[in-house]
């Protein structure tokens, strides 16, 4: 296990340290040939995970792009402790889930050992660029509309997308390990299509490689509309037509453009980077690197909505609370 981790780290670092546009080269530790499909494409197929403790944005006070292995281990330990805190008896978080059980905390999954101090590498600060005045207004409008709806448990539509099995952060695009668990993907490809299946909510993306145009501008989807092409040995996927329903950083919209790059750099790793562009939302484009590591199959059928008892139970519990409160108030009124 320890040996495997060291090898993985060695592979990520040189690839990631290069300029994002340059093609990653496999390190010379051992001669490695790109696996290819019968039609000659680089073979990205298999089961992959991007579970990691590397935060999206660089922590305050950290100024460098990469930790030393010792620093990275310490940062991971801090994140692990934070996860564990959610299992502290008597806390609100502990009532919902015990994060140390059922594989809910990341320390129990197939973690990627990455020396990055943040997933974001551009801007070089490792932090998200400022958002525009227009985007600030959009966020404020959304928050106001949301407040009009009432409390979280007043109606199903007020509850979070993940509670409703509509959308899990990290399902992508872009692929992010925003959830704590089950950040598993399966890639299947042929000469004309690449398919990315996300275990969470069995969300699936079919990416045509034939250069066809995007959907008409007026048609928007949660996952947008992806088109792919091979640039050398790198799969480049461009996605537009995002719906504002997509909760990505609170700023997804039809004007957002996402470019993802997948390069297989070893049997175990895919170098994955993405760039977000939207001049109506961000002061500048920004990019992040989220390595994909090979993991074991199979993916299970995550029939989330079909087994979603919690929404009905939470709403019913909230109504019961209100009924009891009303009865209590009536009793006091009579006295």
């Amino acid at each position: 296990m320890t040996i495997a981790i060291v090898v993985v780290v060695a592979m990520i670092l040189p690839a990631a340290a290069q300029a994002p546009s340059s093609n990653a080269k496999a390190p010379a530790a051992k001669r490695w040939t790109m696996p290819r499909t019968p039609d000659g494409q680089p073979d990205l197929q298999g089961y992959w995970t991007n579970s990691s403790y590397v935060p999206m944005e660089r922590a305050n006070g950290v100024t460098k792009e990469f930790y030393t292995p010792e620093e990275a281990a310490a940062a991971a330990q801090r994140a692990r402790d934070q996860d564990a805190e959610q299992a502290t008896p008597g806390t609100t978080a502990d009532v919902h889930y015990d994060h140390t059980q059922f594989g809910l905390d990341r320390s129990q999954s197939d973690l990627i050992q990455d020396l990055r101090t943040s997933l974001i590498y551009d801007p070089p600060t490792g932090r998200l660029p400022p958002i525009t005045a227009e985007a600030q207004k959009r966020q404020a409008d959304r928050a106001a509309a949301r407040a009009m709806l009432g409390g979280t448990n007043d109606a199903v539509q007020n509850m979070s997308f993940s509670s409703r099995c509509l959308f899990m952060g990290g399902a992508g695009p872009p692929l992010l390990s925003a959830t704590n668990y089950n950040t598993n993907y399966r890639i299947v490809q042929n000469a004309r299509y690449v398919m990315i299946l996300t275990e969470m909510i069995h969300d699936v993306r079919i990416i045509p490689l034939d250069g066809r145009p995007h959907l008409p501008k007026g048609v928007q989807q949660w996952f947008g509309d992806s088109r792919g092409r091979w640039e050398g040995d790198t799969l480049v996927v461009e996605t537009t037509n995002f719906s504002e329903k997509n909760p990505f950083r609170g700023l997804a919209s039809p004007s957002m453009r996402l470019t993802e790059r997948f390069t297989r750099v070893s049997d175990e790793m895919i170098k994955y980077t993405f760039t977000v562009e939207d001049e109506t939302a961000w002061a500048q484009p920004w990019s992040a690197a989220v390595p994909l590591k090979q993991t074991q199959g199979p993916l299970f059928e995550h029939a989330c909505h079909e087994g979603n008892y919690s929404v009905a139970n939470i709403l019913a519990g909230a109504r019961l609370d209100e009924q009891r409160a009303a009865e209590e108030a009536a009793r006091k009124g009579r006295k």
Partner: protein
Amino acid sequence: MHTSKRFLGFALPWIVGIAGLVLPIQIGTRAQAHGRGQARAAAPSYRAPRTADGKPDLNGIWQAVNEANWDIQPHAAGFGRVVALGAADATPPGLGIVDGGEIPYLPAALAKKRENFEKRLSLDPEIKCYLPGVPRAMYQGRPYQIIQSTNVIMMVFEFAGAVRTINMDKPTEAPADSWMGWSSGRWEGETLVVDSTGFNDQSWFDRAGNFHSDALHVVERFTATSADHLNYEVTIEDKNVFSRPWKLGMPLYRRKERNAQVMEFKCVEFAEELMYGHLRKQSAK
């Protein structure tokens, strides 16, 4: 010599033409003798184009064009489920897809099927955006895409974003019951044979309440009969519900639109008010 060549030149198209008329009729009769006589005569000599690894290429976006999702058995037009939708929700008439038309239900199962039909508005999983199960997903009347690779064939459905993973390696046991089942595939010449088990007992075959148990075993055969048609034949086995195995079948049609694609139909949000509306806070709008 010269004359006979000319004769042949004149007669050959006629001979071929007449044979072309007679042969399909004969094949059609054979298919009718088998059962329902849709366009699913034993695959003629069509040979599908090949993938890079030499297998019949079934890639594409496919869709059934029939009324089976309303009722897989032969049925006349009927009243709909929702008064407010009038003729728009009325059941369209259909010849059905079941070989022989009858489903060999065990007596208790037949009673349950009838009860399902009576309560279909509240029980049909489709209305709640639940995963459609197999084979219903294949004839729900919505598009799905076959993405063929060497060791796996994916089927990705518009409805609820359902997914089937057909393992083309050595068959394995289902690790758990599921809505879409656990499928192993193999090639028999031109035909993709998919054997599926590991189903739960939650999905239905149609809007008429035809159903199965978790003992469901489905064997499907996909054979290209032209560049744009697949012949789809299915054997259904479920000892808890049916007295014997039975068959269904239909042609599947390629979606030919330029730029055809399986679009997103995340239907959960469309079913939420129906499912949870009664739990809404009374003062909440």
